[in-house]
């Protein structure tokens, strides 16, 4: 018995004894498919899991999961189940289904099936033990497969979104000859800060910029790392011959920066973007004149 247990856990190919038990188990689960499936669906509803889905949907998914579950038990291969888990995750993640719900329903199924095994074999304790020895490792593996599939799918979604945000979020724009603006919106993490700097320095080079206005109106918070990075960016820009004007520091950020003692003496700051652009134009020797007035002068 002990041997059977270790075999089922360690080796991919279960021993003959385990195989026989699993076959018996699968037969049992197939026979009671309808009843067990319904019991499971009901337990899901009772536990208030998958509330984002309708009752019919829950039942339909429960049926597929059940069949896949039994198949995985029967064949001992998890590829089909893995693919199904990924597919299921893809469908339910956008609807706001949480990790704990997915893990919850798989554990519920495990529980429902185990109970039915108890009910069937409680008279023969030895047999029940052996059945459980065959069932538990496989069931655990199934639970892990489904949960990991769900989490992986979620992480993939998150990674894709992060990529998208990153690509969208760092434009370096030329507003006039020799003048760039870099509007920063949202949270600056170290990676994004590095990317911003890289793009800005490259932009200075390709656009031959002499003045850069960095507008951080859309940045809600800033920690000392990011602030120091900003200072480094300003200094690096100076080494390329460009003056940096930082605009739109919110009161909170101003307070944070002073409190954490970032050395801002090298930073040229102006209240808002308009003021920053005006200051930049002054540095570049531009002067904006209303058309009417200009005509009058001519």
């Amino acid at each position, binding site marked *: 018995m002990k041997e059977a247990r270790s075999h089922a856990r360690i080796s991919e190919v279960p021993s003959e004894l385990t195989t026989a038990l699993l076959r018996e188990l699968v037969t049992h689960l197939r026979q009671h498919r309808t009843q067990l499936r319904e019991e499971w669906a009901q337990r899901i509803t009772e536990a208030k899991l998958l509330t984002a889905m309708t009752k019919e949907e829950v039942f339909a998914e429960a049926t597929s999961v059940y069949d896949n579950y039994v198949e995985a038990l029967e064949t001992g291969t998890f590829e089909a189940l893995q693919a199904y888990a990924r597919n299921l995750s893809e469908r339910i993640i956008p609807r706001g289904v949480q990790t704990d719900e997915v893990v919850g329903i798989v554990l519920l199924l495990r529980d429902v099936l185990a109970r039915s095994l108890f009910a069937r074999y409680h008279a023969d304790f030895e047999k029940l033990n052996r059945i459980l020895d065959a069932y538990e490792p496989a069931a655990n593996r199934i639970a892990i497969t489904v949960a990991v599939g769900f989490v992986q799918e979620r992480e993939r979604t998150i990674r894709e979104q992060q990529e998208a945000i990153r690509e969208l979020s760092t434009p370096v724009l030329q507003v006039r000859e020799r003048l760039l603006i870099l509007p920063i919106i949202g949270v600056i993490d170290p990676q994004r800060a590095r990317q911003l*700097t*890289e793009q800005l*320095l*490259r932009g*200075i*080079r390709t656009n*031959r*910029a*002499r003045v850069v206005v960095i507008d951080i109106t859309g940045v809600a918070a800033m920690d000392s790392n990011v602030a120091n990075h900003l200072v*480094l*960016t300003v*200094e*690096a*820009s*100076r*080494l*390329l*011959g*460009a003056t940096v004007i930082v605009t739109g520091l919110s009161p909170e950020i101003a307070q944070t920066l002073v409190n954490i003692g970032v050395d801002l003496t090298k930073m040229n700051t102006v209240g808002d973007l308009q003021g920053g652009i005006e200051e930049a134009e002054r540095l570049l020797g531009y002067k904006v004149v209303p058309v009417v007035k200009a005509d009058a002068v001519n």
Partner: protein
Amino acid sequence: MAVPILKQGPYLIASVQSALTDADLLELRNALVEKVGRFRSRGVIVDVTALDVMDSFASRTLRDIAHMIRLRGAETVIVGIQPEVAFTMVQLGLTLEGVATALDLEEGLAYLDRAAKTGGGETRSGGA
């Protein structure tokens, strides 16, 4: 390898062609400080476009050059620092404080012209 120093009107242009050893840097420093007086130059441009590394000694020497040349009555601009080099430098704290910088040779010349018009920027410690 010695750095060629070209005379262009009232300016001297030192165009660095390859990575410099510490000895090369000192030689460049001495040559510039000497020539700026000999040619009565108003400005010096050091072009480092070809450098893809700037260590602390190089950056300190460039700063020294700028300060020495200021004492000799001329203005210095460092031009052509690569973006990657610039960021590495500031991360190491090598910010070339008090030294004028410009994007490239053209910008450097424009800077010196402007400085000449406004009366030599912050320098003007007497003629050479």
